[in-house]
């Protein structure tokens, strides 16, 4: 016991000495690494130069690396200690990143943000509520929202479909059938097929132990049953004018020319423009039939975030850099140069943004968008569930089989994390 105390004294003395050394050795430049998407590299270079100019008293050595937002999690979790200090990532990765300690809790850095003349509440107020909600885990903000364009809505060909046709799935499919065209959507993905359940008031959530909470096999807050939602989905999938598209094959199918309407996001804007020509139009998703009522289809609102690595040594400056490349001026630049849909309220309200068809449709759908809080166990079971409906494995008359499939889905999604 005595020995241990002595050790503790010696160790803390050593710590004090070494930390004193750190403070005195503080003269050199602050070294930071920043990861962003390949197509954003030029813009990030400009923003880093502006960042340096904004803090002239401090010397920086900032290097920029290429890492796509969609694969950031995979690379970072391989070795968080070696990953970049500041990195961009898609919002659905936030739980795994927080879980692995790869994101800093920004609530501890209020004091740092004052150097940028802001408080954390200013950041939260400047961006759309959904993006802040999606960047918040257990009540703490873990990342700065940078873009709000990771959601889906309806592209359609206005030379084939009228405004009335696109109001509901029933009229949409009927009109498409009459025109000999098809309406496409991905069913075999929990990111897309959750839209029906979210629309009917069902939820998903994340528990503290990392498992996923899901209520789709019961009755929603709006009073609809999961079975009725599934019946609505079967009704859509069994229409001859409906085309179930494999996840990741949407762009191909738009170019294929069979479609007159498709559920997709801003990344397919150019493909849709080319396919639909002058008829190119976009709007919110239609309503669908649940029981005997029409329910507005929901959606998943996805965002792009910039976060700071939990293992970053120069964390203070890293937080300031992350804040800088997500502030209003930077988001304006991202929209101007990269056509990236902003999450900042002021940029979002500008005329240029609302003139963009796809961006405007995304804005209309955003009202029904939900931040999808799910763990890793959600994806495979939910993709399988959507595929079962798309392939017609479930019969619309067999309530018991639908209920059983929903129960199995819930069992798989809520399984303990390994």
């Amino acid at each position: 016991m005595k020995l241990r105390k002595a050790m503790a004294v010696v160790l803390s003395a050593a710590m004090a000495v070494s930390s004193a050394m750190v403070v005195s050795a503080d003269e050199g430049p602050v070294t930071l690494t920043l990861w962003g998407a390949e197509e954003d590299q030029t813009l990030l270079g400009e923003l880093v130069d502006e960042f340096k100019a904004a803090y002239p008293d401090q010397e920086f050595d900032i290097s920029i690396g290429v890492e796509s937002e969609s694969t950031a999690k995979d690379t970072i979790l391989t070795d968080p200690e070696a990953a970049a200090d500041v990195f961009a990532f898609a919002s659905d990765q936030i739980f795994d990143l927080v879980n692995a300690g790869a994101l800093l809790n920004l609530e501890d850095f209020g004091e740092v943000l004052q150097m940028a003349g802001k408080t954390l509440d200013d950041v939260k107020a400047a961006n759309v509520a959904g993006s802040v909600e999606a960047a918040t885990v257990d009540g703490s903000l873990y990342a700065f929202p940078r873009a709000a364009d990771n959601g889906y809505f309806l592209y359609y060909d206005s030379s084939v479909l009228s405004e009335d046709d696109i109001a509901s799935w029933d009229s949409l499919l009927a009109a498409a059938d009459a025109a000999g065209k098809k309406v496409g959507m991905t069913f075999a993905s929990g990111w897309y097929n959750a839209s029906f359940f979210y629309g009917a008031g069902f939820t998903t959530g994340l528990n503290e132990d990392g498992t996923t909470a899901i209520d789709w096999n019961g009755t929603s807050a709006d009073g609809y049953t999961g079975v009725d939602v599934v019946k609505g989905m079967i009704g859509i999938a069994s229409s001859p004018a409906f085309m179930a598209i494999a996840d990741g094959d949407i762009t191909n199918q738009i170019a294929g020319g069979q479609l007159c309407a498709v559920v997709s996001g801003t990344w397919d804007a150019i493909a849709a423009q080319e396919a639909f020509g002058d008829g190119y139009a976009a709007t919110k998703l239609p309503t669908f039939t649940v029981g005997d009522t029409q329910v507005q289809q929901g959606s998943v609102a996805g965002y792009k975030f910039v976060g700071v690595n939990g293992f970053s040594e120069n964390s203070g400056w890293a937080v300031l850099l992350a804040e800088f490349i997500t502030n209003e001026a930077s988001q304006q630049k991202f929209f101007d140069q990269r056509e990236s849909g902003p999450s900042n309220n002021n940029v979002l309200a500008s005329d240029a943004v609302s003139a963009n068809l796809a961006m405007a449709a995304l804005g209309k759908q955003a009202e029904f968008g939900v931040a999808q809080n799910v763990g890793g166990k959600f994806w495979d079971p939910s993709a399988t569930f959507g595929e079962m409906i798309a392939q017609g494995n479930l019969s619309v008359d067999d309530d018991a089989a639908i209920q059983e499939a929903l129960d199995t889905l819930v069992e798989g999604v809520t399984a303990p994390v390994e």
Partner: protein
Amino acid sequence: MASQKKGGAMSAVGGFFGAIGGFFKDFGVAFAKGDIFVKLSVLWMGAGYARRKQYIKALIMTALEAAIIAFTLTFAMQYVPKFGTLGTVVMERVFNMKTMKSEFNDYDNSFSILLFSLFSFVVWAGAFVIWMRNVVNVYRLQQKAEAGEHINTFREDMHSYIEEKFHITLLTLPVIGITVFTFIPILLLIFVAFTNYDQQHMPPSALFTWAGFSNFLSLFGGGLTTTFSYAFVRILGWTLVWAFFATFTTYIGGILLSVLLNSAKTRVPKLWRTLFIITIAVPQFVSLLLVRNFFSNGGIVNTICANIGLTGFLRDIGLVSTSYIPFLSAPGWAHVMIILINIWIGVPYQMLIATGVLMNLPSDQVESARVDGAKPFQIFKSITMPYMLFVTGPALVTDFVKNINNFNVIYLLTEGVYTTTNQAMANSQAKEVDLLVTWLFRLTQDYYNYKMASAIGIIVFIICAVFTLFAFNRMIGNGREEDYQ
């Protein structure tokens, strides 16, 4: 015959343990009968050499001993003492506003502890062997000195490494390479299978620890997750079915094709052969991804089938229930398609090998058979095939093992196209068309479930090792050449 071979295998194993026993006996004899310097060599590895005036060797051994002690004290001791728990200190971080830096405690990283402990064990095992050999060697020197024989100088010793001991010089580098790049990773894989290394226990921010046999229990159905054993049995079954069909269809197909091309009746055989070899010239992943797109639900093949009415016909007779033919997206269909596509990919390789072998087919046998009035099929059955099997047997075994781990074909053809409709499979992150190795890949890549992936990896390793041992023992055992004759 079989028992004889088993006896051979047993004696080989016996010989192995005998050699180990002999090694320890040599050491015991050397230590007991050696003089004071041999005994001193146990503590100071250079002692025996110094006594026989081999000063450079003494210096080298002393330096080696010092290096191992230094390695142990400065490196191994950081990790090995924590090997029992795999670390206890969780990462903590404090932000220092003055320096704008995060300050970390001296936290443990379970993975580093496991990896570097294993590395230390391997180094120590090597050092232990050298230490024992050293005592035996200096005892031999003592015997030589007592008998008045010549004792090599350092230059003579060095020279022997490019003369009578040249094999040692040649093998040193490969052995080190295999140890570092193959042996230690396999050891690591084996140990991870007995831990709880998964998404909830991911270093560096969290620790993992030993978990006994629980991963194997859940794989074989005794654990909490029943779906894991459900998926494992089915995937193992498909893996074996696939390996069997993939190996034999391409093998037989390749031989038939080359016999056909070698036949005197075939015109412009060189043109045909070149055409088939072009499949090899295109990188496999390019052709596989293209084929995947051709056969996808909305792909070109489906469009053609729908236009010529094949899809409608198949719907009418009840073979498909969807508006497309699920070539690569429904069980059964996908299984057959994968094997067919693999024939197209794999046959040209086998054709090349078979062509080479057929050119060496003893023509006197074929001639005399023909003179005796044998039909072409009889010649093929009784002469060509046995000869082929005899020559390419070992390659067939390797092919089978390769196909068990044939990641490319399965993953590239089904990833992103195949979604299982079996909920029990989906609940354990598996698909009907997965091989053990692709399942393992997605468990680590998408779910960070390293412990289960390691357990599966060990099973794959055992299957491949046992199969290879048995097959090689049967095929390359002595006496096979006479069988053929």
